[in-house]
Every structure is written in structure tokens, then in C-alpha cells.
């Protein structure tokens, strides 16, 4: 059957050449969703295309988040930019600073001839992508939040009744696990996001000045000033000696540590739900992130990760009408609930959350609402509504590098945070210089 493919290729070329005759306005949408999620994205685009016949959304996979974003920027410089590009949360500051290249979603929706209410979005999700004046810059699409995954079987075996809710309980649980001969109690991935950014938001402490960068480019990091964070990281590093904590790499590289049963608990994105349920041969659950009782009595709220959709300048007004209609379709409770349930990302509108409740999704999949509950625990404060730092992709790498030296025993937690802060601040100044 493969020998017909050249013909298919030829047919595609011909149909492309013939495309203008169809008089449909084409909306280009570049995304970074590989695997099954990519298919889901295309399903959404097709759903929209079938719902009307004025516009045709072409969803294209352009590599991972970094590759996709750089491809869009390179395309913009060459005048070939797509209408919509998916950008991960840490690229927000870069996109925001690009006035003249980026069209705020608020403008797109306000100028378009449709009904739309930005308050329909979950506050903790929306606040991350909103100007201090309340204008929405980009459309939340796939958002998640870190949770604590636990291995129920192992906890039972060690006689731990409830998953730890505080760090003290965590270390107690570790002792109990070691009493039954199980070394590794916990690990985590995306360490900058989980253990620095979310830790600080969870305990209502600033990551940087100027409301975590929301209020101005002249922001400076403050994470090294948190004594309780420093002490906790040091305690974690020291606990490697008896095997309580095991470092398993950046991003989600440490997932095998959890699903193989080597580590009893794992802190990382709620979006790993599908992956874990596919692989884990034990009973597992998700709980909220542990609280450090030295730092706070109650948790504040966690912050999101994931990506949003940005609209780029340089197209006709008619095109933007199509973008607005597509966004409206995408935000509808049915599409969102389906996306949320299929992907493990949090529902981004309150209506989609309610719809999932009505459909009984959380009853048949217990724990899947942990992330959304964490996010909406309290009204976000300036410390917990998110962060907006320039060059943050690189800065996260710096934090990764310095923390890795901490885990390797080459420096103390205080040194690691201090160095990361100094190097990070230098990058913030670079960003300020080239964007003002």
C-alpha cells in the first residue's frame, strides 16, 4: 500500500495549489503537542472546520515548545508567521515584550464580532496571562499544576495511613518506609517549577521583586532570601545519604523512578495522569503538595505550567475574526471538558470544570481534580498569581544547573540558590536592556 504514497504527495501538492479557489480563509496554528495530544489538537481544529465553512484552521506540529517558539519567531522575522502560536508559560515575558509582533487576545476578541467573556476562565489560570489592567494577553490552552503522586501499595505496606500533607510528615513517612527496607521515599521532576516556583507560591513568598516581574522589567530575584526554602533544600540534599531522596533528572525524566516503584512519592505535573495510569502496576493517587509548617500554616495556591496560544500581528482583519471564532470554539465547555479529560491538563474554564463534575469524571477517576483544587484554593496574591521574568527559559536551566550541583554534593543549598539568583539577575538585566 505504500507505493500509492507518492501519488498522495502529488495530490497534496496539487490540492495546495488549488486551495485559493476554495475561498476559505486559512488560519495557521503552530503547536508543540507531539504524540496523542497532537492528534487531539488536530481533532479540535477539524471540529472547528466542520462547524463552519468560512475559515479553515491548519494545525501544524513544529517541534517541542522551544523549537515551536523559535520557529515562529524566525518565521516572523522572515514575514512568514502563523496566526496562532503555542508558547509555554516561561516564554510569556518574551512574547509580552514583543509589542508590534504580538496581538493581545483581548484586542482580538474585542475587535471581533463575537460574544466573549474573559471571566469565564479559572482565575489562577487567567491571572498568569493577564496584564495588571486585566487585559488577557494570550489564551490559556493546556495548563497543569504540580501535585504529589503517591504509591498507595507502598504506603500501606509501611503502615502510613494518609499521604503526607507536610514536609515533616514526608520525612516521617520516609523513616517508616526505610523501616520496611524501602529506600527512596520521594523524587521530583521540573525542579525549578515544582521546588522553587511552586514552593514559594504555595507558601505565599515572592520569587522576585515587582510582583514576580508582573509590575516591571526592573525585577530582581528573591528566591535565595527564603530561609525555609534554603533549609528544606539542604535537608533534601542531606537525605540522599540514606536514600530518602533520589534525583532523577530534569523535566519528566524521573518518571520511571515512580512507576517502577523505586520511589514511593513523586512531585510533578498533574498531566502525567495518563502516563502513570498506563504504566503503574500498583495503586496510586494524587495529593496536594506538602506544606512546610515552618513557613506557613495554610497553603496559598499553586501556580500553573503549560502553554497558551498567542496571536501574531501582520495578518488581515478578516483572519483575526477567524482566530476569534476558533478561540471561542476552543473555550466552549464541551471542547474544554473533553480536552481536560483526555489530556490530564486542568480545565481552564469554570464551565468545563462543572461539566466534568456533572459527567461524573472525577468520581470514576478520583484525584484528577487535585490540581484544579490546588489552583483555586485561594484568591491568588501577587506572590502566587504566577511569574513573568524575561529569559526565563535560560534562567530555569541555570536553576537546574545549580540545583544539580547541590544534589551532587558540590555546594550547599545556600550557595546554590545564591549563585542561581546572581546568574539569573544578570539575565534579567540583559532582557531589560534589549527590550527597553
Amino acid at each position, binding site marked *: *500500500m*505504500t*507505493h*500509492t*504514497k*507518492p501519488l*498522495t*504527495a502529488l495530490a*497534496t*501538492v496539487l490540492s*495546495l495549489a488549488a486551495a485559493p479557489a476554495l475561498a476559505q480563509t486559512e488560519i*495557521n496554528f*503552530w503547536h*508543540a*503537542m*507531539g*504524540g*496523542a*495530544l*497532537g*492528534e487531539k489538537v488536530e481533532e479540535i481544529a477539524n471540529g472547528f472546520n466542520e462547524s463552519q465553512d468560512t475559515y479553515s484552521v491548519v494545525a*501544524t*506540529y*513544529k*517541534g*517541542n515548545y522551544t*523549537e515551536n517558539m523559535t*520557529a515562529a519567531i*524566525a*518565521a516572523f*522575522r*522572515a*514575514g*512568514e508567521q*502563523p496566526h496562532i502560536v503555542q508558547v509555554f508559560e516561561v516564554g510569556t515575558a518574551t512574547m509580552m515584550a514583543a509589542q508590534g509582533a504580538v496581538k493581545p487576545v483581548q484586542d482580538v476578541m474585542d475587535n471581533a464580532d463575537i460574544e466573549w467573556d474573559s471571566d469565564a476562565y479559572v482565575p489562577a489560570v487567567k491571572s498568569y496571562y493577564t496584564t495588571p489592567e486585566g487585559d488577557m494577553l494570550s489564551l490559556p490552552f493546556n495548563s*497543569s499544576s504540580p501535585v504529589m503522586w503517591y504509591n498507595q501499595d507502598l504506603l500501606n505496606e509501611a503502615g502510613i495511613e494518609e499521604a503526607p500533607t507536610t514536609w515533616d510528615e514526608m520525612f516521617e513517612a520516609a523513616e517508616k518506609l526505610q523501616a520496611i527496607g524501602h529506600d527512596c521515599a520521594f523524587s521530583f521532576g521540573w525542579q525549578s517549577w515544582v521546588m522553587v516556583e511552586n514552593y514559594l507560591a504555595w507558601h505565599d513568598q515572592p520569587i522576585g521583586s515587582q510582583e514576580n516581574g508582573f509590575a516591571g522589567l526592573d525585577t530582581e530575584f528573591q528566591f535565595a532570601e527564603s530561609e525555609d526554602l534554603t533549609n528544606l533544600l539542604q535537608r533534601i540534599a542531606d537525605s540522599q545519604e540514606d536514600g530518602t531522596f533520589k534525583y532523577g533528572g530534569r523535566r*519528566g525524566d524521573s*518518571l*520511571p523512578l515512580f*512507576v*517502577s516503584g523505586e520511589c514511593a512519592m513523586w512531585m510533578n*505535573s498533574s*498531566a*502525567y495522569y*495518563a*502516563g502513570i495510569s*498506563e*504504566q503503574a*502496576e500498583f495503586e496510586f493517587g494524587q495529593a496536594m503538595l506538602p506544606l512546610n509548617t515552618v513557613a506557613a500554616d495554610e497553603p496559598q495556591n499553586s501556580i500553573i505550567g503549560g502553554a497558551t496560544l498567542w496571536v501574531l500581528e501582520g495578518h488581515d482583519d478578516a483572519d483575526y475574526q477567524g482566530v476569534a471564532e476558533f478561540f471561542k470554539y476552543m473555550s466552549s465547555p464541551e471542547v474544554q471538558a473533553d480536552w481536560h479529560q483526555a489530556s*490530564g491538563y486542568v480545565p481552564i474554564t469554570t464551565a468545563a470544570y462543572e461539566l466534568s463534575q456533572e459527567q461524573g469524571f472525577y468520581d470514576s477517576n478520583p484525584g484528577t481534580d487535585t490540581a484544579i483544587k490546588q489552583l483555586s484554593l485561594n484568591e491568588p496574591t501577587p506572590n502566587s498569581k504566577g511569574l513573568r521574568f524575561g529569559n526565563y527559559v535560560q534562567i530555569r536551566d541555570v536553576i537546574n544547573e545549580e540545583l544539580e550541583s547541590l544534589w551532587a554534593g558540590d555546594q550547599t543549598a545556600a550557595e546554590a540558590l545564591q549563585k542561581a539568583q546572581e546568574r539569573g539577575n544578570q539575565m534579567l538585566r540583559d532582557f531589560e536592556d534589549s527590550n527597553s
Partner: protein
Amino acid sequence: MIENRPVLNIVQHVILILGVTVFVFPIWLAFVASTHTARDVNSGIPLLPGDQMWENYAQVLGEGLSTIGAPPIGLMLFNSLIMALAITIGKIVISLLSSFAIVYFRFPFRVLAFWTIFVTLMLPVEVRILPTYEVVAQLGMLNSYAGLSIPLIASATATFLFRQFFMTVPDELTEAARVDGAGPMKFFRDILVPLSRTNLAALFVILFIYGWNQYLWPLLVTTDESYYTVVMGIQRMANAGEEQPLWNLIMATAILAMLPPVAVIIGMQRLFVRGLVETEK
């Protein structure tokens, strides 16, 4: 054999077999992974093939691949083939011609031309990728086979190797051709190109593999799935974000993607090896 030393012979074979085993092991593992279910692979790869081979390959070759986020594999293989062949043939043709000019003619700017070509040697496309992309976009070559291949033809390796080879061709041949009244193009066609046969084979193999294995460049210049190459497809499947990639299907695709370059190498092995030796001398 010069002398018979049974112990030494056994040691040799042991070392060779050990070496081959170690070197082929990762590929063997990829094959093994492609014959199991996704779940088996994720819980630690087994060492022996499983019973899912037909299911996995049937799924990859059939429509199944589209459900894990990649265009049909036949199309991707076809695109890779076009790209690899265009790069290979393009490079060989322009390099043959230009090194012929450099070696067999004296003309003003000859040295300048040679160095102009020469500085492009070795600098990989990744390092100059953004400015190159802008040029290709300005020329309107995005989403085309031309855009996929022509910018990668700009490299001097082949020119350099042909020059080295032409320098070793005896002058008597040129003189004889001139005595016979043969023009430069006739000499080129009837004598030089046939003499370069083994070098051509060696370069064909090296360049075909180079072209086939490109990843970052095709990713940047294509937005239309009908131009995706198979290496891009593998990366897309592996890059499943927070989901667990379906390693068994990815490995099946990787094995299929490996077959054409391996076939080229093995098919041209004899010529290739002779070519390597001659080029290098």
C-alpha cells in the same frame, strides 16, 4: 594466514565477536523493543524479541501511525528519500564540475573561488540555521523539496575530495586526450568520471546518510505535513510531553527508517570501501 597460531586466532574471534556484539547491541535492542507491547517496553526492556512484531509493524505501516501523531510513514519515507537523493546527487554533480574546473583549468580568481567554496567545509547547518532560514524564506522556498535540500548542498567536502582525487590522475591521460583532439567536456565525461567511480560510490553513501539523517533543518522549513521526513516523525512521536511515548511503535519506525541507509551501505559496500581508501590517499 602467515602463520598458524590457534590460540591467537581464537582470541581474535572472541574480541571481534565481543566488539560486534557491543556495537550492534543498541540496534538489537531497538528491534527487540519494536516486537513488544508498549507496557512491556516501559517496564524495562526485555532482551529477547516478543510476539508483537507483526501487530506493531502492521500498525506503523498501516493507518495506525496517524493516531500517535505522525503522517503516514510511506509519505515520510518518500520525502526522506527525495531529500536524501537531492542532497546527494546535487552535491556530487556541482562538486564534480567545480573541482574539474579548479584542477584542470587556470583562470583568474581560481584561488579565490576555491577558498570561497572551502570555508564552507565542516560548519554544520545547526550553527548558521537562523540566518539561513531567513534567506530561504525570502526566496520563497519554505515547504518545498528545493528548500529542504538545496541549502544543504552548500558544503565543500565533496569538492575537496574530488580535487584530491583529480590531482592523482596521471597527466599522461590528459595529454593523450588532447593529442586525440578531445575537448575538456569529452575528457571529463569519458575519462575522468569513469575513473572516479569508486569515489562517487563512497561519497554517495556518506552523503546519502547525511541527507537522510537531517532533523533540525526539515523541522524548521516545513509546516506542511506532506513534507515531513521520517526522522522528524520519530522525534515527534518521542516528544509526547507528559504522556508516555509508545516506544514499541517508535522503535519499529526507527528500524524502518534505518533500513534504506543500511541497504545503501551494504549494497555499495565493496565500492564504498575501495572509494574510501582511494579518496584518502
